[in-house]
């Protein structure tokens, strides 16, 4: 009965969220920056959660996320560019050699799948490495992937180092939210399953996990591949959001940004990653943008403000979080209805006793 209640509340809340989004799309002008934040935030939330699955839950410090997103984005873009647009996109390669254009609904899972296959192959040698060596090797692989995709000889497929564009994109916020929602739900289910426990065991203590009969290689490979699958889907969504995609944009910096999102949200917290990705995107794309412009209050020019100042402020905030709130917003906890309810109840109880100043 209690379980049923929980499910019902969850469904109602999700419905409410989508109704709210729909309502927002009606009320606000489509140009509102809120939508940029919501779209990009949702995409980054997916990628951050997928990275968290690997770094936070399995304890594998991988820095290959940008590379996997790149594969996903390219797979999606290459497979969905309409035939009639190919001549224009592949202008230096006589329209390319990919003979088909798939519908979006097929291309997105396929983007994840192709990424997962690559990740599987990369994982075979790389996952034997320990902590920082793994980090640097995955970082290296991301760079290699980028170089290969930019290679001229592959031009008929990848368009060399040039932009891919004119593939189907989304305009409504609903789409990225729906895809991200489904994907994160699957990840959460996985984390709470027996496999999720095994991943956490590996994170806590590899030797003990092995002594409990958990095959390290198999489970690490599993986590790596699944994480990359969702990173690939995230990449496909990012490609859709950007409307054009180019390998050179998927640099190590992108991985670092996602890593910082995970850290700010709390390593090992799914809800933390989601919250922080929206905050991160909102700060970097919207709220802090005013720092880039010189502002006059009367005749007084506010000092320091100018192009680039936003990023300085932003990185200082990040450093403060890393140094002083190293557990991030959520730590390893999850934001749950129950937790929220209990938190509020405790507060109101305290209030009754007069402990909390109003």
């Amino acid at each position: 009965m209690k379980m049923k209640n929980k499910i019902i509340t969850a469904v109602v809340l999700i419905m409410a969220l989508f109704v709210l989004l729909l309502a927002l799309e009606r009320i606000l002008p489509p140009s509102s920056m809120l939508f940029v934040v919501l779209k990009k935030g949702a995409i980054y939330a997916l990628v951050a959660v997928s990275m968290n699955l690997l770094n936070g839950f399995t304890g594998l410090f991988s820095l290959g996320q940008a590379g996997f997103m790149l594969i996903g984005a390219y797979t999606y873009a290459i497979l969905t560019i309409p035939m009639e647009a190919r001549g224009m996109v592949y202008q230096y390669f006589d329209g390319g050699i990919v003979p088909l254009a798939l519908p979006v609904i097929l291309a997105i899972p396929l983007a994840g799948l192709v990424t997962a296959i690559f990740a599987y192959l990369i994982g075979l040698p790389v996952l034997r490495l320990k902590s920082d060596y793994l980090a640097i090797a995955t970082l290296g692989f991301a760079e290699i992937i980028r170089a290969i995709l930019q290679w001229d000889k592959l031009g008929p497929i990848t368009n060399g180092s040039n932009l891919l564009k004119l593939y189907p994109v989304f305009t409504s916020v609903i789409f990225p939210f729906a895809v991200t929602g489904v994907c994160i739900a699957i990840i959460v289910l996985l984390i709470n399953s027996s496999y999720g426990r095994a991943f956490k065991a590996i994170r806590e203590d590899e030797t003990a996990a092995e002594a409990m009969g958990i095959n390290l290689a198999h489970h690490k490979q599993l986590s790596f591949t699944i994480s990359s699958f969702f990173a690939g889907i995230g990449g496909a969504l990012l490609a859709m959001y950007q409307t054009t995609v180019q390998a050179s944009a998927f640099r190590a910096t992108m991985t670092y940004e996602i890593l910082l999102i995970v850290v700010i949200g709390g390593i090992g917290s799914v809800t933390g990653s989601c919250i922080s990705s929206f905050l991160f995107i909102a700060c970097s794309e919207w709220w802090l943008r005013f720092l880039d412009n010189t502002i006059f209050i009367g005749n007084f020019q506010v000092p320091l403000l100018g192009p680039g100042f936003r990023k300085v402020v932003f990185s200082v905030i990040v450093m403060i979080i890393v140094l002083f709130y190293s557990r991030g917003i959520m730590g390893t906890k999850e934001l749950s209805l129950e937790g929220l309810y209990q938190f509020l109840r405790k507060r109101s109880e305290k209030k009754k006793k007069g402990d909390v100043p109003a």
Partner: protein
Amino acid sequence: MTDHILQMENLTMQFGGVIALDNLSLEINRGEIIALIGPNGAGKTTAFNCITGVYEPTNGCIRYEEQIIASNHPQGKMKKLYIGKNKDSYTRVIRHTPDKIAQMGIARTFQNIRLFKDLTVFENVLIAKHMHMKQNVFTATFRMNRREEKRIRKECLDLLEEQDLLPFCGEPASSLPYGLQRRLEIARALASEPKLLLLDEPAAGMDPQETRSLADFIVHVRNKYRLTIFLIEHHMDLVMRISDRIYVLDFGKQIAQGSPTEIQNNRRVVEAYLGVAEDA
């Protein structure tokens, strides 16, 4: 015919130029409680690590239920470096990873407790069941293994109840007091449904009272789950009270074996070991 569950044959473990286990041979019969004792650095834990697949022995072989689970001979650089015995007696190389060994039914605890600290007590025990569940990542994720999951949860709760750990079920393992952490580690090992249980200094850091109850507990566990127990221990009263037989190691070599009384009266053992570490 005796029923050996575990046999070690001429096992030698050499790190660089140092011999940690020297031509060690021992047999453990089904249902026995066997103790492995010896001064610090005698190679006891190394023996455990060889059995559980953490280390690859340099030479010799280990049989578990009549099946070879580890076998090796000096190779590569070791060929020149090797200073142990029986250099050419073994030709096969068999190696299993620790998880494979665990799946075969050998569970262990660790000298320096290795619990999954940030996970709850319940999760710690559940993890040990993971390898026995009939599932794959899809059925597990999409909850198609619900019956299986229900069953193991029930089993684990029962196990925790038996160990008096039920009240701590949802607490993180690291929040338990030391004695309970030891008990949880044994519970976790039991949850993996072993036939052979290796205990690495289970009584370390316990007072005489606790040690006594632990001794009873070990015997109880052996009887209830029809286990064979192989333990390393420094508490001599515990060892003498519960062991069927005792092996004594010194500098990697076996210097004696026999029943507790035999060992107590063995001069070499007393010289090498007992006189020094009695008070431990």
